[in-house]
């Protein structure tokens, strides 16, 4: 396994206080080590706290306990602002700013991170090209279909060249056919860009297609109940994966786990 780029150690998150009687623990003692170029998939039911977990990883919310280690440096319970550039975050509901064109949405990242220069502007085009939307550069989000919006969302998370890509149920709001298409596209992006990716989903097929490792989360508070290594070589992950015996084996196995957790 490659170098550890990112580790979380005994992360916990709770809301409220015990004194007021509305204490709620959302995440309980989650640890994982993530190696370079790994594709981690977190699988769990809706409302199990996996989104909150991702928000901690993406620097949106701090954890209440535990610590994180980024490239060998202990950064405590929250990602410090100067390290946010290493992360790209893709939201469940694309979360594009409606007042900016596709290009403008990507540009915002560069503006806020103060990344100037020709090479960055060129990168906008490159990223839009990777998701196949270069032609839609100057189009506003409301003129794009759901799948296209999410593709812009992914390009946006890639434009500042982060080391780690975080995807929070990126395909959850899409119809089944678009969803399938886009999951192959994420696979290709992973192959092409060689990023480390952490993704949350509730779809087992998607998880097996993409992941190097799958973590199954239980319901509130979230804890890791299973860790499954997906040992299907990258070359075999393509449209024919449905005929792969290992794939169907894993599928049955994980479906069993997920249903049992309900």
């Amino acid at each position, binding site marked *: 396994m490659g170098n550890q780029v990112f580790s979380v150690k005994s992360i916990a998150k709770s809301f409220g206080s015990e004194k007021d009687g509305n204490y709620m623990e959302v995440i309980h003692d989650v640890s994982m080590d993530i190696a370079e170029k790994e594709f981690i998939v977190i699988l769990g*039911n*809706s409302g199990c706290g996996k989104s909150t977990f991702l928000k901690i990883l993406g620097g949106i919310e701090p954890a209440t306990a535990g610590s994180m280690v980024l490239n060998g440096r202990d950064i405590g319970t929250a990602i410090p602002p100067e390290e946010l550039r290493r992360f790209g975050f893709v939201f469940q509901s694309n979360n594009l700013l409606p007042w900016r064109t596709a290009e403008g949405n990507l540009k915002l990242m560069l503006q806020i991170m103060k990344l100037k220069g020709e090479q960055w502007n060129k990168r906008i085009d490159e990223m839009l090209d990777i998701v196949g939307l270069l032609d839609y550069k100057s189009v506003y989000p409301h003129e*794009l*279909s759901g*799948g*296209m919006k999410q593709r812009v969302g992914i390009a946006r998370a890639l434009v500042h060249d982060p080391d780690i890509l975080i995807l929070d149920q990126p395909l*959850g709001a899409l*119809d*089944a*056919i*678009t969803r399938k*298409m886009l999951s192959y596209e994420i696979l290709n992006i992973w192959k092409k860009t060689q990023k480390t990716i952490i993704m949350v989903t*509730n*779809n*087992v097929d998607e998880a097996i297609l993409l992941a190097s490792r799958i973590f199954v989360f239980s319901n509130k508070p979230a804890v890791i109940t299973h860790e499954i290594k997906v040992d299907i070589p990258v070359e075999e992950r393509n*449209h024919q994966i*449905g*005929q792969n015996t290992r794939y*169907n084996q894993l*599928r*049955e196995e994980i*479906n069993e786990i*997920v249903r049992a957790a*309900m």
Partner: protein
Amino acid sequence: MQEPKIKFDHVTKVFQTRSQSILAVKDYSMEIAAGEFVSILGPSGCGKSTLIRMLDGIIDTTEGDIFIDGQKVNYAKKKMPQSILRKMGFIFQQPNMLPWFTVRENIALPLRVFDLKGPEWEKRVDELLELVGLTEYAKAYPAEISGGMLQRAGVIRAMVHDPEILLMDEPFGALDELTREQMNMELLDIWTRTKKTIIFITHNIEEAVLLSSRVYVMGTHPGRLVEIVDLDLPRPRTLSMITQPKFIQYREKLEGCIGEIDLSKIK
């Protein structure tokens, strides 16, 4: 041969906008027998929603005829009479509950519109609520209950006036995977008990295979029938079937049909 319950006879629909005319459905024919459960499968924009909206008199046909029980029902411009509308219940993609009515009032809405009065109808509302486990939420407002429960309410609203046909327009598309599986099983259960004729629209291949006896696959540009696949799977169907070879075979076949359409054009 027995008269088909529903018949589409070379139906074409063109939407006329100010600047252009869009061919939404081209030369579509299908026959469905009473008590059948059929799915219409296709990518977004293939006109599958248009089909059942034409059947339910929400929009009219441009060419071709639609028959229910041998009676022609494409009422161009004129409103479809309530006697025909009463034979059908429509389930929308979103729950489409009216937020100002309670769950029970929403479910009873067709009774008010069709002027169905009397204790037997009110009892029916309560029975249906019971059937899908919503009795204790009857007085709640739609905003107060979860998506899965809302969609259940949507299903029984379409059944409350005792229609012979249920038209379902991607009813579970907005639900998460696990809730959807559960709803599918509940729907099969309802169908087995009531023997309604069901037209189920979906873009989820697995769902189509799991539920129906026959799948009509549609393609885009223009919306048209690509393939009819008869599903020879035993009933009652269960969730464990999805890993059986025969099921996977059907899934692969349908995936192939869809793949042959124009995946590149799907956005």
